[in-house]
Structure formats: structure tokens, C-alpha cells
């Protein structure tokens, strides 16, 4: 298993001198353009109002390249539309960063002793990488592949190219060096969906956007009466999170 530092093509990483987070902010992808009132020319597109007016969140483990990839990926997986703001506007990239920084991201409760053998799919995950390592290595491999295929890192692709690239990863057709694009995509998608639908205390699902979208009420204490009163009738409630009861 190649560590992410040794992937081929890694030296050609920096494409220009614009720091990535500034680039993203300028493009409105991180969702702060409208919130801060900074309408920046063509970047101020017709996206719905962001879920939160939060300042950019400080990152715990993702570097700027990884963050840019993550934002671009979660916004492709969960695009802004009539149903919800984009993934990153809902805090999904923040969720992923925090999860990778958590005990889980560091490999807690995982058997990590060797020898390492690539078994059959039925035998499950068999790599020495922690979830945080796996995610970082996957991003590095995805960007190498993206540059080879499209000439740019993933986050600098056009929206339709991003969707095409993610589909290629999902189907395992994106040929990453020493890395399974299918496995990487599966982890990326799982984390994205967790972040979108998790309780907002974890940094995603800002303003309970996905719970409102689904009609999921969060944590009310009891439905012992409602379950009878609302047979075949929609129960509607303002969603409440752990923070609302804390």
C-alpha cells in the first residue's frame, strides 16, 4: 500500500498560487459568499440560501487540498437544489473533518495487527490504514487520477466533470495507483450521508436541513400517544437535536 506521500505525480500538486480556501470562497462553493454578503461576480450563482451564516470552520485534520476535494465532492453528492442547500453548506465537510479527527478516524476499536493480506470481499476491510489515513490516501490518489484524466485536481473540475469522475470511482473504473477507487468512493459516500443526516452536534446537518427535508422530528421524548393519533396521517414537528435538550 503506497502512502499518500509517495503516490506518482504528487510533486505536480500545486497548480497555481491562489490558496485553495480563498479560491473556494471566491467560487462560492464553501457557501459563505451569500452569507457574508460578498457577492463575487460570476461566482454568485443561483444557489439557495446557505443553511447557516457560519464563518468558515477551522479544520482539524484536513489540509487545504483535502478540504477542497471534500467540499467539491460533498457538493456533487449532495447538490444544492429545491430540497436542500449543498452538502458543504450543510456542514458535511466539517462533519467529515471532525470524524477523521475523532477516535474513530484514528482507528479506535479496529483490529490493526498484521500480517496484512488482501482477502476476498466477503472478509471485509483488510488494510493497515486508519479511516483518516485511508481518506487522505484516497484523496491523493483521486487527484493524481483526476489530473491524468482531466488535467486538473478534482475540485477544479467543472460540475459535470466532477459528477462523471465520482461515477467512475463509484464503479471502480477510475484507476487509482495502488488504491481501490471503489472502496474510496464507498467511504466518501458513507461519510457524506452521515454528515448530511447526523445530529447537528457533529458539525453537519446545519439548521437540521436534512431532517426538515425528510420530515424527521429528531428526538422528541415520546410518541406513545401520537402513534395512534397519527395513523396514516403525517406527524409534523419542528425537529429537535441533542443540543436543544442539553
Amino acid at each position, binding site marked *: 500500500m503506497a502512502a499518500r506521500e509517495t503516490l506518482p505525480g504528487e510533486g505536480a500538486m500545486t497548480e497555481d498560487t491562489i490558496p485553495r480556501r480563498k479560491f473556494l470562497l471566491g467560487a462560492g462553493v464553501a457557501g459563505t459568499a451569500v452569507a457574508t454578503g460578498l457577492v463575487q461576480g460570476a461566482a454568485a450563482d443561483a444557489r439557495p440560501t446557505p443553511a447557516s451564516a457560519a464563518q468558515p470552520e477551522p479544520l482539524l485534520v484536513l489540509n487545504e487540498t483535502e478540504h477542497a476535494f471534500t467540499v467539491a465532492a460533498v457538493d*456533487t*453528492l*449532495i*447538490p444544492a*437544489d429545491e*430540497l*436542500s442547500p449543498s452538502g458543504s453548506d450543510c456542514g458535511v465537510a466539517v462533519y467529515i473533518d471532525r470524524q477523521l479527527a475523532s477516535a*474513530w478516524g484514528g*482507528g479506535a*476499536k*479496529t*483490529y*490493526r*495487527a498484521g*500480517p496484512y*493480506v488482501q*482477502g*476476498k*470481499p*466477503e*472478509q*471485509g*476491510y*483488510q488494510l493497515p490504514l486508519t479511516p483518516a489515513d485511508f481518506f487522505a490516501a484516497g484523496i491523493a490518489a483521486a487527484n493524481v487520477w483526476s489530473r491524468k484524466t482531466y488535467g486538473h485536481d478534482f475540485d477544479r473540475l467543472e460540475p459535470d466533470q466532477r*459528477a462523471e469522475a*465520482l461515477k467512475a470511482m*463509484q464503479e471502480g473504473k477510475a484507476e487509482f495507483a495502488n488504491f481501490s477507487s471503489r472502496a474510496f468512493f464507498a467511504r466518501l*459516500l458513507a461519510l*457524506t*450521508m*452521515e454528515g448530511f*443526516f*447526523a*445530529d447537528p452536534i*457533529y458539525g453537519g446537518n446545519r439548521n437540521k436541513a*436534512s*431532517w426538515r*427535508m*425528510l*420530515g*424527521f*422530528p*429528531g*428526538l*422528541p*421524548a*415520546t*410518541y*406513545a400517544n*401520537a*402513534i*395512534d393519533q*397519527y395513523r*396514516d*396521517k*403525517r*406527524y409534523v414537528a419542528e425537529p429537535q437535536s*441533542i443540543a*436543544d*435538550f442539553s
Partner: protein
Amino acid sequence: MVTRLKDVDAVTVGLGWTGAIMARELTKAGLNVVSLERGPDRVPGEDFILPTVRDEVRYAQRLELMMDNSIDTITFRNFPNDRALPIRRIGAFLPGEGVGGSGIHWGALHWRFLPSDFRIRSTLTERYGAKSIPDDMTIQDWSVSYDELEPSYDRFDKICGVSGQAGNLRGKKIDAGNVFEGPRSDAYPNAPIKSSNAGLMFGAASKSLGYHPFPAPVAIASSAYVNGEGVTLGACEYCGYCNRIACETNAKASANSTLLPLLRLDPKFELRARCFVTRLNYDKTAKKVVSVTYTDMRNGEEYEQPAGIVVLSAFVFGNVQQLLLAGIGEPYDHATGRGLVGKNYAYQFEAGANAFFPDKELNPYWGSAGMGVVIDDFNGENFDHGGLGFFGGGYLTCNTAAAPPIAGRTVPKGTPEWGSEWKRATVKWYHHAARFNTQGSVYANRDNYMDLDPTYKDALGRPLVRLTYNAPDNEHKMSRYLLDKLEGVIKAMNPAHYDMHPRPRNFTVVPYQSTHNTGGTMMGPDPKSSVVNRYLQSWDADNLFIQGASVFPQQHGYNPTGTVGALAYWSARAITTNYLKNPGPLVHA
């Protein structure tokens, strides 16, 4: 340097359901009991509280209550000739860890096995002829009958405050309950919990086809209840968060909520949490386990705890590992078919379906995970297997409840997994998707077993258990049959669309399927065919009592915990009424 501690009357290795039942029964008989639990203590009023228990990420995704694979896991392969590899993070099954074990996070489905399940080889022989049972199907009769176990089933029902509707009360059949069940000496302690809207639809459709629907029995109190030990349990709130999570109202029964409140006050009981038992010290000549060795995880020191009675009450894999490491009994040898420890591993064979009702509001997030309407017409020997080409069966259920937002969004097959189209489908169907399951038996097969892994070790330096398992052809045929029957009911519900979800050919360690792992220390009539006798006493060490689903000779079409708890009461009664007066083998070989 191992510190040798003072003798105690009894020690339990693990403190889940069976450890707590045994500790309670033995302390009541006057014994001093020490429970050694590898994981942390878990106290309802401190650890199972609002709002923190309603956290899908922490409990259902990150598996807070489950075993720590950095310390301990098993290795797995589908076939005896494959190379087994470690399950690096559990997925298909989720054994718990800490005080309460798997009995905290369970779905609380609370079943009894059928009278015919306890004598399954005899029943099949009588009905279909001895030759009908394939050579590789190594099923055995239990060495306890339903009638013998019934008082213990009833006792455990009343500890848990089980909610349900009797279908056979002392031989009288009651249509609202399960008319296929064995006779119950008493009704369920609580009325059935409420059914979901989808469950009611399933019940009506199955009734129209001539089947016998009833609400699933659950160890969840539908009303506040004072249990058989005088402990008050709360009423279910239908909060929707109980699967993989603790219950803050103590409506869902756990050892923590039903028995430990008493044990914690009892000076005859001592809990030592974070104490990992690494070895049973076996005197083969005396046929006794003289002591257990454990590591206190808080200081890293080793201790030897001598005990008059040793209760092995770990999960299935831990029980088997302890016997194999200690050299108690003969390990199963797959090549020759000889030996018994590790033999007859079995599992639950589940397969499901989803159906979509755009005009029905199902409010899918509330209720409890186990809440469902069930038909039992195709379980065990409730139906004629003549000409079907398989044995076994299972129950069919619609359990549309407790669908959390990360893991509980159901969409039709073929829906994109991301993008705007995915989002539209997710919103469109979340309130209108009904979910179904078939809960099938796994009859033992000579190729499914456990032994010690030659390569991988746990954090304490012990070889891991190696599991060799794949669902046999018999189980695939059984499951297809159940799915066909389920499809008939679903069609009668008239959905806009439905998808059947048969299991892939090979068992895989992800995704989640069931924590109903069984076998490896099976019970039976004699030491030639079993590891423990009918009282769960080891044939090879008369002071060793092995608890839990590892004593099942095969797994039947029901959740195991009801039977696990009943067997613990049955075993405890044999100890307190006979063994204590006259320590020695309770059954003479």
C-alpha cells in the same frame, strides 16, 4: 507475577444476561459471587440518559456499546480451504461489551423455540424418514424439552416484562396470538406493544391469505411493570432510537435494568469491570476448573481468582475460545469430523424486502426496532417440508419502525445513490416505504465451525477464534421459500412497487445481518455428542457451567435471547437444588 486472590464460591466470566441471571440466583442461594467483565460498567441512571442516548452517530454508526476489536476479534473465512483473515471492525454481527453485554443494544425480540425445535432430528426422522436428513446436516436434538424449559421461559418473561399476546395458553389456542407456539403456563406479563401502520397493513394482508398474524413479542414493557424481582420497569415511549442503543426509560429489558439494581446492593455480589479473563485453569485429572486468570485492564496486572463454581458467560466466540485454550473437551476436527468444541456453529439466515405505498403515511421513525407484525406459519415444523428439498424455516415480519435518518432511508432498487435524483427519491419515499424481514433458521452443517487461528492473536496474546462459515444450500432454499411467501403477502398489500432482497450466495462480514451466532459448545445427552449436559454443565469439568447460545445444537427460526435466558434459569435451578448439595456430575455419562 500473578497475584493469587482469595477463593470465592462462584465466578462469572462476563456479565451480560446469563452472567447476571446466574449471579442473582447463586447469591440468593447464599453464595459469594464475583463477576469479571472485560468491558466498562454501564449504569442506567448515569449512562442511559437523555439526550445523549438519542445519538445515531455515536451508537448506531460508531457502535459505542459493541466489542472493542483493537483488543479482541475473530478471524473469518467462508470455506475450510480459504485463508481466514481478521474481522478488523465488526459489521455483520455486533457482540456487545461491558456490563449488560449484547443485552443492552438488542432489538429485544423475545421468542421461545417451538416444542419440535428441541427434538428436531427426531421430528424430521419421524415425519420424513432418517434418510431425508442430509449427511452433512449435523443437527441434533436438544437434551432438554420445551415442557421442561417452560417454567424457566415464564420466569424470564416476568423478569423482562415481555409484551405480547399468547396464542397457546395451557393448550387453549387464541387467534390473536401465535397459534403455533408451545403451550404457555401464563399469559405475557404485558399487553402487546402498539403496531406500526405498515405492520397493521401486513397483518390484514396476511390474514386475507389465511395466515395467522400477531404482534411480535418483545422484552419491552408496554406499560410500567414491576418485574419478578420487584424492580420497576418503565413504559415504552416509542422513541425510535432503541436499536443498538440503550433505553433510558428501562422499558427495554437489559440485565442492567432488571437484575443489576438488586445485585449492586447485595454484599454477596462483587462486580469487577474492565477485568479480562484470559484463561480457565483446568485440572484435567480432577475434572475441575480450579481458577480463572484475568488481566485488570486498569493496571495491566494479572490475577488468579480461584472459585468453587465457574460460570462461562461470555459471547459465543469467547466461550469457545476459553475451552480451546484451556484444553477442556476435544476440539472439533473438520477433516475427520471428530471432536466437539467448536462444532455446529450456526447463525440466523435473514433476507428482506421493501414495498412502497405512495398513498399511505407510515411515520417510519417512531416505534421500537423489534416492533412488528409477524406470521409464523412457515417456521420450523409448522408446515410440511415434504418435497420441498430443504428443512427449517422462519418467521415473516413487517417491522417498519425506528427508521433513523442515516441508516433508515429506504428507496426502490435502482435509485441513484447520490445527486438530486437520489435526494428527490429519498424525500418521496421516506414516509411511504414499508420494510419486511424473513428470520430463518440455520441448521448445523459439518463445514461450519470454530477453531483457533494459527496466525492472528488478540491484544492479550491469545490466538483468535477462527470462524469458518457459509450458509449451506439448504438455508438458501429455505430462504427463497420464505421470500416467495413474503412476496405473496406484499402483493396482497397492493404496493405501487416492491423489491425483494435475497441474500448473496456467500456470507460476508459486512453489512449487518444478525448477532444470533450460536453453537460451539452444544448440549446433548452424552459426552460423545455434546460439550455440556442438559444443565449446561461441562462433561469435562463438573464445576464449569457454560451459558448462552453457544450451547445451541443449531439455530432455529427465532431470536435466541428468550431461550438463552430460560436456559440460564434452568441451569441455575439445577445448581442451587442439586449441585450445591452434592457437587459432581448432574448427569452420569
